[in-house]
């Protein structure tokens, strides 16, 4: 019996939907849906301590697969250039719920949704380790 590792709950875009709808249509659908339910409050309050902890997690622990300088490793690069054009909601979903079939695990036991959003913004703006 084979299992995909790295995630217990599948994000919607990697589930059955993906297999039925072409990638492009799926993305459009996803971004559309995202616009509807994306919180408009911007960044939630994250304490400086938590920000430090999240940066540390990003560099040291995400870094074990994505490279400490985020240039990639077993996992893809997470540099600003590499992530250009990727919807924030998709990145947040991947962080929180992982990518089944790949080693990317769900990190939702380590951070809140707001904290994942904060990390996504950090990455999209070009996180400097």
């Amino acid at each position, binding site marked *: 019996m084979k299992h995909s*590792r*790295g995630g217990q709950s599948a994000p919607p875009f990697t589930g059955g939907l993906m297999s039925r709808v072409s990638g492009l249509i799926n993305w459009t659908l996803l971004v559309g849906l995202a616009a509807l339910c994306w919180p408009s409050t911007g960044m939630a309050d994250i304490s400086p301590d938590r920000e430090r902890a999240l940066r540390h997690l990003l560099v040291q622990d995400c870094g074990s697969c994505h490279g400490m300088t985020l240039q990639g*490793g077993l996992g893809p690069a997470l540099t600003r250039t590499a992530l250009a054009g990727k919807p924030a909601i998709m990145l947040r979903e991947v962080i929180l719920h992982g990518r089944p079939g790949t080693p990317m695990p769900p990190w939702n036991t380590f951070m809140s949704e707001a904290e994942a959003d904060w990390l996504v913004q950090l990455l999209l703006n070009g996180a400097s380790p």
Partner: protein
Amino acid sequence: MKFHTLRSGVAVIVAMFATACSTATLRGTGDLGIVIERASGSVQVVETSTRARLARIEGLGDLSHASAVFSRDARYAYVFGRDGGLTQIDLLEARIVRRIVQAGNAIGGAISQDGRLIAVSNYQPGGVKVFDAMTLEPVADIPAVYGRDGKRSKVVGLVDAPGQRFVFSLYDAGAIWIADLRDRKQPVITKYNDIGKQPYDGTVSPDGRYYIAGLFGEDGLALLDLWRPELGVKRVLQGYGRGEAPLPVYKMPHLDYWAEAGGMAYVPAVGRHEVLAIDTRSWKEHARIAVAGQPVFVVARPDGRQLWVNFALPHNDTVQVIDVASGQIVQTLKPGKAVLHMEFTPRGENLWLSVRDDDRVEVYDTENFSKLASLPAEKPSGIFLTPRAHRIGQ
């Protein structure tokens, strides 16, 4: 510079040597090693006899997933950096001898049986590159091309094997390749496909006979008998998860040095809080030992009496010791935040471990588990001691 030449008593050489390494005392390297400082691109030279730091060498680039092998004279370390850097370090003079950046993204390397070749496994561009150990001049380039459209796979689990061979696994291709470099100008590649999904690392038995690749994408391991390579790769421990969904994996397990004791090989179970014991005659599961978290490294003390295990997040503050004779956990240590690597002294009376987030390297007595020393280090990860110079697969 060979040390016995100093015996000729040429004062100038002695003086030069004294200047270069700040001590004129002749010494061996058998109790030396290096500690990778992953965040600062530096390594420490350490000595296990006095449990001391001797020197710090900077300028090695991105060491976020660095490993090292040693020249057979155990004087030089070759450090493989994440950024494709390959750096030759002189342990005695505590300096960089040569450094090249040979790829965009690398994961590790190996030294050949005769000590003359250094092979590096690369993620980007995926493949293996081989260099002359003395000059770091390129010798061979082996792109890990697979499939019909010529894609390149990330390469993992690169080890040396007898017969001037390097063995490695192709993560994306699900393949194991053997590169025979007896003729260094014309490497002969043997390829095994469909060995299993997503091999994440590989290791070779201390006698150089068996190569095992751990599989991330399925429950099982891929086994290749290098004495009988014509028999191909077979799957062992298939379905060890017994149909249970694995846990998410927050750090990839590693198969550093083959952990064998009492006829059993011990490997981390992927996505499970277990160490698997494999009977090395039948290659069937012998036992599984419940541990505190998902194992990252399972290392055997050189006498095979103990296994030391560290863990992935969120249990990476813990180390457990398994007594091989009883199969029981006899000690649970909490050395600190993010224990990344463990290395035994040559005959196993001590174990050195790195505690990344506490910026320390600690030394433990393996009989009574007392802490013998705590040395400062900047975000330490891998600890590599020179006895590796004389072991197959290291």
